[in-house]
């Protein structure tokens, strides 16, 4: 079975992730979920909208997963990102790693989300009451 789950989906179901990462050689599983926060810099967010260059995003997510599996000898990895409009509290990204010991899965999980945010072609637009903002677009 493949060690990697790499997906871009319309809706993230968080309930299955520990089953997806379960492995008899693992003693630890670390998962991070990014969710829509109600306030950003004091302003109320109504929703977020995610757009992607899907073909390239999957390629970049795959590179991140392979690098992490290799570096931390992971048994399983998941990187799943949502697209479309997401309301407050909705999960927008889930990344996770399964390994023999906990150091590896914690470090790998952090690497997965940090690197995803740096390299994967996904764009987030914040909807406020009176404006919209493409996050990080401007200095």
């Amino acid at each position, binding site marked *: 079975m493949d060690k990697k789950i790499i997906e871009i989906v319309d809706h993230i179901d968080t309930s299955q992730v520990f089953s997806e990462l379960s492995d008899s050689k693992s003693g630890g599983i670390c998962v991070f979920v*990014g969710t829509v926060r109600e306030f950003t810099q004091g302003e109320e967010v109504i929703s977020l909208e*995610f*757009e*992607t*260059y899907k*073909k*390239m*995003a999957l*390629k970049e997510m795959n590179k991140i997963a392979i690098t992490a599996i290799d570096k931390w000898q992971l048994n399983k990895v998941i990187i799943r*990102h949502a697209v479309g409009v997401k309301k407050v509290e909705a999960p*927008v*990204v889930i990344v996770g790693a399964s390994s023999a010991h906990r150091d590896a899965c914690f470090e790998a999980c952090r690497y997965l*989300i940090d690197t*995803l*945010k*740096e*390299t*994967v*072609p*996904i*764009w*987030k*637009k914040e909807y406020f009451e009176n404006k919209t903002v*493409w*996050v*990080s*677009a*401007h*200095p």
Partner: protein
Amino acid sequence: MNVLLFGIAKDIVGKSQLQFSEAEKTPETVLELKEMISVSFPEFRKLSSLAVAVNSEYAEDNVSLSRNDEIAIIPPVSGG
């Protein structure tokens, strides 16, 4: 030559693809493409960064472009 546009790049240009017709001069390198779109749409100069992907891989400024490549403008990413 078609150039795919995403996120704020799509908003700046006002459509999701930029087309260079057969008759037009087309950019020969990534750098030339960045310069051409920044002249036509000065809003690109205000972005935090501007990358280009060729065949769905990040491409350095010196990479050559051909009509059959899948080319995309990659404004600052903000997933997660």
